[in-house]
């Protein structure tokens, strides 16, 4: 039997997600434990990453596990033409768990099919990044005390944003209400509206960053509008400036509102928001460590 892996947030059902979030909460209270003592975790980053790699490696180190691996494919044998399968089979003989980021889409699914040890997908091209979704869900759960019946306003690039798509998928069994705020060129794809319809999820679409989309929200999830998605530079500048959050825009928002962002942020959240207690994006990034500790222990069958 193949070991359980985390390739896609859709691989986890509601119970799986809640189980991991509960254990992430315990790791947040006590992140330094001996749970991975004697375990070797391979961190295979065929594509560079800062936040994801460092938070995974921090997660392992705080649990007394050891990390092997590479942070750039230039230092791996893939530059010699080794197939992904061969690399995974080899590393799978050394390590107890493989954390992998790869530029090719579907690489993590394939790795999970050939690997003798669990694979954690740390991003496969523009396809999936489920540990990001898990930390987003954990942050929502932590700040709201529940995942059920929340109003989530998502702003920015809803067309190409991988984090956005997986978040919608991850929340889909928790009866959310979504407000989608995006320029016409970056509206939420039909596929996700169909998913909402199928699961009887209420949603509204906004072209303007309207006050009601902020004031009705429990979570305001901001994303970056990427310049490379635009062919017309003037259009980009116009769009970029219309989806910026300033502190005064939060004055009428709900007391429990938290502002999240998968980071890196550019200009879409003005610096004047940072000191508002509703700004929670740096704590969200910190939560990545605990969510990843929970995912790793869950896959290895280690109970906290």
């Amino acid at each position: 039997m193949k070991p359980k892996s985390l390739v896609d947030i859709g691989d986890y059902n509601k119970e799986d997600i809640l189980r991991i979030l509960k254990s992430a909460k315990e790791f947040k209270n006590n992140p330094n434990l001996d749970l991975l003592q004697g375990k070797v975790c391979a961190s295979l980053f065929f594509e560079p990453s800062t936040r994801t790699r460092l938070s995974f490696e921090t997660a392992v180190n705080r649990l007394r596990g050891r990390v092997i691996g590479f942070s750039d494919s230039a230092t791996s044998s893939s530059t010699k033409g080794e197939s992904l399968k061969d690399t995974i089979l080899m590393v799978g003989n050394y390590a107890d768990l493989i954390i992998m980021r790869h530029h090719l889409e579907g690489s993590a699914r394939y790795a999970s099919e050939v690997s003798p040890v669990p694979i954690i997908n740390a991003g496969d091209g523009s396809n999936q990044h489920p540990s990001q979704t898990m930390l987003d869900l954990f942050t929502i759960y932590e700040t709201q005390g529940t995942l059920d019946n929340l109003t989530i306003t998502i702003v920015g690039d809803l067309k190409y944003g991988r984090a956005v798509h997986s978040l919608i998928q991850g929340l889909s069994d928790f009866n959310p209400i979504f407000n989608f705020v995006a320029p016409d060129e970056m509206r939420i794809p039909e596929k996700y509206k169909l998913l909402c319809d199928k699961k009887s999820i209420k949603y509204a679409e906004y072209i303007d960053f309207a006050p009601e989309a902020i004031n009705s929200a429990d979570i305001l999830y901001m994303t970056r509008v990427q310049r490379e998605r635009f062919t017309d530079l003037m259009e980009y500048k116009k769009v970029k400036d219309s989806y910026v959050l300033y502190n005064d825009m939060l004055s009428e928002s709900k007391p429990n509102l938290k502002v999240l962002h998968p980071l890196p942020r550019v200009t879409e959240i003005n610096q004047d928001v940072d000191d508002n207690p509703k700004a929670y994006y740096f704590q969200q990034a910190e939560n990545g460590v605990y969510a990843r500790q929970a995912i790793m222990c869950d896959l290895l069958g280690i109970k906290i």
Partner: protein
Amino acid sequence: MSKELQVAALEQGTAIDHIPTEAVFKVVSILQLQKLNNRVTIGNNLSSRKMKKKGVIKISDRFFEEEEVNKIALVAPNIKLNIIKNYEVIEKKKVTLPDEIVEIVKCNNPKCITNNEPMNTRFHVIDKERVILQCHYCELKMEKEDIILK
């Protein structure tokens, strides 16, 4: 006009009739007929009352498993296979798309792992009526007109 047969009758084997002309050689490729030692007759652009022009393939002494022929539905969803014994059609088989297609279709995403590793492709058939496939690996959806055989 004489009623001369356009393709010789088959004593025993499989006859695939009413193949859209553009799909004939794709059917050959899907069934790997080029590798058979049996007698294979391929006719194309034959006149047809129903379709004006059609293709026909007859394979002597060869009967196909359902799993093999169902793949044909990718390129010719409405054809029927005639199973022939002693010059008589003893069964007419319809083709239906399977739930999963392994190996014969190429993924159209150049960044998909299947286009960069020596491995099989694998697609889930998510709409059998409209022929929509989804790559098991990169999750790309492909409609009938975008499907390219390997």
